[in-house]
């Protein structure tokens, strides 16, 4: 009985993780599209096709956006882990004293 509850929790976790991932990726996509469109494509359109400069700008924008996303995310996770270790140390000291 405990095994099947365990299994249910695992599949539920998997499901939750997948949902979160979808939300995160779609939000990332939307924000990135909006930001890069605003930066790279001037509002007055002369042509339906992307010019060379605009295409180059979009490539650079996407690369920078993903790089920034990754770096800041890793930094924040690292800070959070440090904070976590700190909390654990405090709790251990508290329980000792």
């Amino acid at each position: 009985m405990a095994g099947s509850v365990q299994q249910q929790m695992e599949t539920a976790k998997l499901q939750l993780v997948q949902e979160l991932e979808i939300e995160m990726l779609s939000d990332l996509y939307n924000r990135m599209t909006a930001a890069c469109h605003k930066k790279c494509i001037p509002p007055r359109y002369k042509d339906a096709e992307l010019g060379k400069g605009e295409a180059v700008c979009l490539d650079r924008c996407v690369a920078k956006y993903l790089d920034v996303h990754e770096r800041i995310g890793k930094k924040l996770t690292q800070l959070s882990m440090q904070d976590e270790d700190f909390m654990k140390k405090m709790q251990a000291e508290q329980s000792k004293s």
Partner: protein
Amino acid sequence: MFASHVFHGSMVAEQLACSLPNKGDPVSIPEPSHSGFSHLRIMPDNVVGQQSFSGISHFPHPSILVLLHINLAPPSSDLKTSLLRAVQVPSISSLTSIQEAAMSEDDGGRRTMFFSHEELDRLAEHMVGSLHRYRENIVIPRVAGPVHVKTREEKMVEAAFESCTFKSAMSCVIGYGLGAVIGLFSASVGPTVPLPNEKTQTAREVSASLLSRVLREMKGTMLSYGKNFALIGAVFSAVECTIESYRGKSDWKNGTYAGAVTGGVIGLRAGIKAGVIGAAGFAAFSTLIDYIMHR
């Protein structure tokens, strides 16, 4: 259950035949803001299944970082909540329903934790760091028509056709052709072949030699004009493409700068002053043509 609400028609709904434990009313996930997903198959392989369910009693915290981290800290961890509040990230309203799903049923005041802190840290790192995925797993929201993901070969071919070298080569070839046509007209307007000596040849031979000389002159003019125009076209196109790639903008200034460089290169053959005048003139000409073509 609510999996089918979100993943209608997707592969995940077929794979997951589970229901969340201890839910009272089924939570209805609100529809994502875009009209539908083409297909999705996401395998978080390093997060789930490595830590067993620990059963620690923690109260899940209501604030959720969208892109970076999920916080299910106990209410006493003020440091963590203050860190999260310092980051101004708006939370998606639909995520609160997922968070409700994460909380299992209240059993006499004790709530069971769904994800431990280490799991969450690893999950956050996974979501942020692992952007290396197979191409089939990309989820692209379908906005105005079917989603067409280009294959690698298609992209390479397109990149080749839009590259600076190809554009320059095309301009060179077309310039050569245009130069040949203009040379032909220019030669046919005013032939500069001198009349031959009438004493040594008959009338027919005279006209034949004249014709051959005129044709030779035309050919020479066509070639020389063609070479000039090919050079102009190649240089202008290459310089304009390079400047545009460097600046990252597509506006009228690219043509002006490229025209200046081209005019300078051509005029420099006849001295510096001629080079400067040529640069200014060609830049003005290029700007005018751009204005007329892209009005």
